């Protein structure tokens, strides 16, 4: 392991000022489940590590009127055990259960998962379905961005050099909303998704009033399948053959790669069925 400078900061201001000072030449340490592994493999070239674990402003899950605010340092175990999230935003709870292993869920943070910007980040597809907003802070003050504007590519976000993700803002679920998260891996734990799909549906009078579909690991970033959403919106009859045909459209919206976990062709074919299976769990599909 190479040598580096280690800074443990006490508050957000200190963290932002330090990151302003180091610019690109720094990495934040939150849960460390990714960073420590890369440090040991000599894959980190930055020379300064800013440990943000003790920043109180980045912790906790709070109800704020019709919103839920999740601090970026909140761990996946905290998400899984949160009564607020179980009640008002169960999709992120389900997806968090699929992250790594108990040890990783105890240490790994939602902020780390988001800022790593991996297309395979397990917590990201549900956040797309929730139209999450990210509260960011830098030396220039704070701003709120929509999740759809945040990711730029694998490992790339719009975060400025001195900017920190403070919290994730979700809208509370209404009574007629339902969701399903589906992850295909090479095994059932400690696995990076070959592909994943997440669906949130709003039903009224037996028809799909609104639907959001997101997919992970099948494009440079997590994406929304808006064409498929548009076809499904307003649908009342759910026949298997027709739904599968609609799901087939998802192929037009994704652009996967081939790697050791799976080929491009497999990811394209299987995405259709992951979306179908999620729908199958939410709708009464016949035939």
């Amino acid at each position, binding site marked *: 392991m190479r040598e580096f400078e280690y800074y443990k900061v006490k508050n957000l201001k200190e963290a932002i000022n330090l990151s302003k000072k180091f610019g690109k030449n720094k990495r934040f340490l939150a849960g460390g489940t990714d960073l420590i592994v890369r440090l040991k493999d000599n894959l980190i070239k930055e020379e300064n590590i800013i440990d943000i674990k003790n920043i109180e402003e980045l912790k906790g899950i709070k109800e704020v009127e019709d919103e839920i605010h999740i601090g970026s340092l909140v761990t996946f175990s905290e998400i899984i055990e949160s009564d607020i999230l179980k009640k008002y935003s169960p999709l992120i709870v389900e997806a968090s259960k699929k992250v790594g*292993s108990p040890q990783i869920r105890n240490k790994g943070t939602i902020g780390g998962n988001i800022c790593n910007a991996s297309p395979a980040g397990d917590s990201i597809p549900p956040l797309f379905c929730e139209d999450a907003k990210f509260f960011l802070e830098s030396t220039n003050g704070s701003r709120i961005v929509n999740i759809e504007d945040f990711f730029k590519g694998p490992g790339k976000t719009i975060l400025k050099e001195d900017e920190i993700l403070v919290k994730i803002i979700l809208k509370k679920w209404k009574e007629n909303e339902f969701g399903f998260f589906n992850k*295909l891996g*090479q*095994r*059932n*734990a*400690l*696995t*990076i998704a*070959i592909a994943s799909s997440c669906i949130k549906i709003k039903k009224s009078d037996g028809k799909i009033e609104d639907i959001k579909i997101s997919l992970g690991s099948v494009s440079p970033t997590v994406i929304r399948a808006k064409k498929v959403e548009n076809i499904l919106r307003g649908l009342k009859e759910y026949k298997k053959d027709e739904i*599968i045909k609609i799901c087939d459209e998802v192929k037009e919206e994704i652009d996967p790669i081939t790697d*050791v*976990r*799976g*080929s491009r062709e*497999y990811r394209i*074919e*299987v995405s259709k*069925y*992951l979306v*179908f*299976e999620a729908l*199958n769990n939410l709708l009464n599909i016949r035939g």
Partner: protein
Amino acid sequence: MSKVIKEEKIIKEFNTVGKNVEKYDGLPLVTGQPLFTDDIFLPNMLYAKIMTSPYPHAEIVEIDESEALKIPGVRIVLSYKNTPRIAHTTAGQGYPEPSPYDHFMFDKKVRFIGDRVCAVGGDSIEIVEEAISKIKVTYKELPYVLDPEEAMKGEVIIHDEDDISGVYDKNRNIISHVEIPIGDVENELKESFYKIEEEIYFTQPVQHTPIETHISITYFDEYGNLIVRSSTQVPFHIRRILSKILEFPMKKIRVIKPRIGGGFGVKQELLIEDICSLMTIRTKRPVRMELTRKEEFISSRLRHPSKIWIRLGADRDGKLNAIDMRVLLNNGAYGTHGPTVLFNSGSKTLPLYNKVKAVRFIGDAVYTNLPVSGAFRGYGATNGYFALESAMDDLANLMGIDPIELRKINHISEGETSPIFEKLGEGKEGITQYIESSALSKCIEIGKKEIEWEKWRGKRVRNGNLVRGVGMAIMMQGSGIPLVDMAGARAKLNDDGTLHLFIGATDIGTGSDTILAQILSEEVGIPYEDIKVYSSDSDFTPFDTGAYASSTTYVTGGAVKKVGNEIKRKIISYASKLMNENPENLIIKERSVVNIITGEKISLREIGERSFYDFEQEQIEASASFISPKSPPPFAAHFVLIDLDLETGKIIPIKYVAVNDIGVIIHPNLAKGQAIGSIVQGLGFALTEELIYSKRGVMLNPSFLDYKLLTSVDIPEINVKFIETYDPTGPFGAKSVAEININGPAPAIRNAVLDAVGIKLNSLPMTPEKVFKAILNSGIKI
């Protein structure tokens, strides 16, 4: 009192055998005592690391280590320039080893990406890593070959050295070739009503992944003896090979095996001990080397990837007429274990169907410029069974009969033999064997019931995207290598009436120290708690070939039973003089020698004490050795229930049933642990584990992130059952359990998929992607 019941009759009664006694090393292990190789720290210890080849095949033109040697704390660099060139095999096998002598400590040529170039010893691992980055090596790249069929054309020659031996055909890269025809296979196939014309099966490279990677610490003791503390399955073979290749007197080498964090065959190999030892000899300092996980994947040993061709012929009524099996093994850059793994892929599988009129086995183990294959639990049988048991289901399918019925008609039974036993041995001819114990038929019946075969077979029950299937496979293994594996044992009586047991046998987490103490306890008639075990120290314990070939319970157990009998006789003989009684009337019971006529007794403590201090003084002790012309096979029938997800291709094992006949069971929990461990390793081999190479032979996934072992949440309910038989040649009727169960999961799951959707998956592992492709190609409606 546990009992072995045969045909409703109690045939043996035991005191200690068959009981779940406390594991000998259980308490110190769970309380974290410093038991493992790395749990010592020696002052002035050097750290060693191997620099490996970045090319699949190249000549080393020059190694310039001058810059590295300038770094403070770098103490030694070893390469072909300053080490003895003595051809040897790294395989830890009985002497003379059946493996070719094609390896040198360091060579002028590298033969795979990960091969040894040189090694550095220094004051810290950081210093050593820096030194390696400063060593300049000039290579002359050579053409390379990764595919064994290409390699056999001989356009690239991987081993062209004059000073190697034991290779079948260097010019065509063939390490070992075998062709055993028994009867007229072609004619029998032609005459057969049902034929499997030619099915080809592929198995992939996988690694043993012991929790503890290879590690050795070497140092000199006060007398100038070289102490080799090493994580090995074969301490005595390590001592022998080290002495030869270091040209260092065997008398001055002491190999100590502490507790081991898993072996599975990968530690039946001299991999790092030579480098540590030579550095200690040259620097006089302790030297430690531990492979990283990446090095363990790339530069240690793997299971042989194989291609297996099978042809079967059967009568109208399902009686097999002929089996034709051809095996091609990719051995990688060195021939270690090549001939024996090759022979075992036939010798451990073909006798299972002994009633054929003709059987043929053709095989080649071939060099390529890939990482090296070696010994791995199952040892060729695992590859062979995937092919043979898959082909048996293909034949049953063709005939339209239940695959269980096909097996029942054809499998070997008690009292029978197979000509294969005689024709195929350990890289040479074998020894005729008659099966003296087998409950295979009963294993099949019980497993069939347990998995609810009739309820699921052929029903293709569909639940949404899931289709249910059920599959099975039967198998056998051996118990040691007949007339090769030998073990010694020694016991002495102490003045508190307890016994010390000394064995060379290598407990690598298997529990052999425990079960060997149980065998001594049973034979002598003293409590298990009164036995202290010392094992695996080449100076202080007798010889033992080591922990491989499912041998320890049977072979070392045989030696311990003999030594128990001998020391019992000596204790009674001594007591008879003290008690003035005929030895025939004396037995050992309740820590005493008891006169069965009068009830008079004298305690073992008194016997021990008086033998030391006041009456016909002597050390009461015994030693014995065991070698067997037999290798009684354990048998097993495996059954698996799966759900196949048609939308993703994922195979979800629901329930696994393994019914075993391993003879009399010495320790039920340890036996069950061996069975479950094998099945889990076999499930990984069947479903997820695979090392992937680039076109240049770079291993692409040498880490636990991308090499997918199954985790606890991937494992189905595993139900292990034992049907006890009594093998007359084994200690208290025991056979073996270490390997057999790894052979079942791959064919059983493959056959369950065949049942569920009619698709033949002949290439391992059966990943979701592979299965999904097959589903799409088959036109099954998803």
